[in-house]
């Protein structure tokens, strides 16, 4: 249990630093940045204290916001996916989630991809809606959501495969 907590603490801190120091400055094709820190929310243990999980996600988003001067957009987006995670888990893993047997190290690739895809898409949509904050630019919001999501998903999958043990 202790190693689990310290493992998540390390993941939390390293994801924040990776995000603000490296990934925020990629600007692929001029404006595309992956938001890899959602991995913390995605890979958080399934059996959890929901209140603590929400607060942690909020703090994670807020830290990213402080570093990137973006108000509260990351906090809102991360909080939303943390709240919606049980629904997304249920949708992508079906009965396995109902029986509380989902382990991120052992589930099949397809289900993991669907899970990441929905989670990241929701996160990015909230993020860019709040960032652009203008209903007239809905096309720009959708465009940025789509492209950044693809970027984030590819990176997230790669990182998960690299760091997962026993695969």
């Amino acid at each position, binding site marked *: 249990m202790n190693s689990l907590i310290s493992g998540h603490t390390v993941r939390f801190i390293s994801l924040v630093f990776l995000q603000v120091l490296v990934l925020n400055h990629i*600007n692929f094709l001029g404006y595309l940045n992956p938001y890899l820190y959602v991995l913390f929310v995605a890979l958080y243990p399934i059996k959890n204290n929901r209140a603590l999980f929400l607060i942690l996600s909020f703090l994670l988003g807020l830290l990213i916001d402080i570093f990137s001067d973006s*108000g509260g957009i990351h*906090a*809102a987006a991360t909080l939303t996916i943390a709240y919606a995670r049980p629904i997304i888990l249920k949708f992508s893993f079906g009965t396995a989630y109902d029986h509380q047997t989902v382990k991120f190290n052992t589930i099949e690739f397809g289900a993991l991809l669907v899970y990441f895809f929905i989670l990241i898409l929701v996160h990015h949509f909230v993020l860019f809606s709040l960032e*652009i904050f203008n209903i007239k630019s809905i096309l720009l919001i959708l465009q940025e959501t789509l492209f950044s999501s693809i970027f984030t998903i590819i990176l997230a999958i790669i990182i998960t495969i690299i760091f997962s043990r026993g695969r």
Partner: protein
Amino acid sequence: MQQIINFLIRNKTFLLYLLLLSISFVFTIQSHSYHKSKFINSANFLSGGVYNSVNNISEYFKLNEQNALLQQENNTLRTLIYNTTRKNDSIQITYTDSTNISATTYTFTPAVVIKNSYSATDNILLLNKGKRDSIKQDFGVITPRGVLGIVDRTSKKYATVISILNTNSRISAKLKHTNHFGSLLWDGKSPYTVQLKEIPKIAPIKQGDTITTSGLSAIFPKGIPIGTITDFTLDHSKNFYTINVALFNDMTNVEHVYIIENKDQPEIKRLLNPTSDE
């Protein structure tokens, strides 16, 4: 009463979610209104310190480029000095005017950009000078090539700058050869072009004309270069031009900047305050 408590306990996750969400909405809305982002900004001990130490390392990789840029600027200034003492009718007259005044009205503080940003719709930069160096809100920031932005929040050692690449930024700008002025805005698309609006139809403009600061806002001196006109259209009312301006600055690559303090700004503000907010 019992039922209310039961309701609260049953929905505590949802209520917590709503509470945190509304907090983040408050921060977001603050960040979208000019000069309102009180709590969430990178000019603090933690993020400022992190960016500063990272920049200490990364600035070495850009040394050559930045040296060339500084030498170029020195060259321009040197040309200016030796030419203006001999003949006063040079075309640089607006620019020399402002530099002559600067000895008394404007003071310049050199600073280094430790966090650049240009891909978001509201870009904010971080500088390594703060209250300790008597930097305050509404000071202008320029680079050797042109305008960069306006100081927003300051902490002891750091200051955030609202870049011209920010949809909330409004800088008063004019045509270099006439005095027709308008507002410089950004549509959030390309980091190389900004939009100049409210230039009256009567103004003689053509492609390639230079746009400079107007000196009307008491933030920037008159005549700091901004960019050149790439194309222009009339707006819906057919009375004003909307002009695309290609920036002189490469906003994706800024390092050494100057913070301008206008010593007369408080006085000018006080005088204009009842009628205008800038």
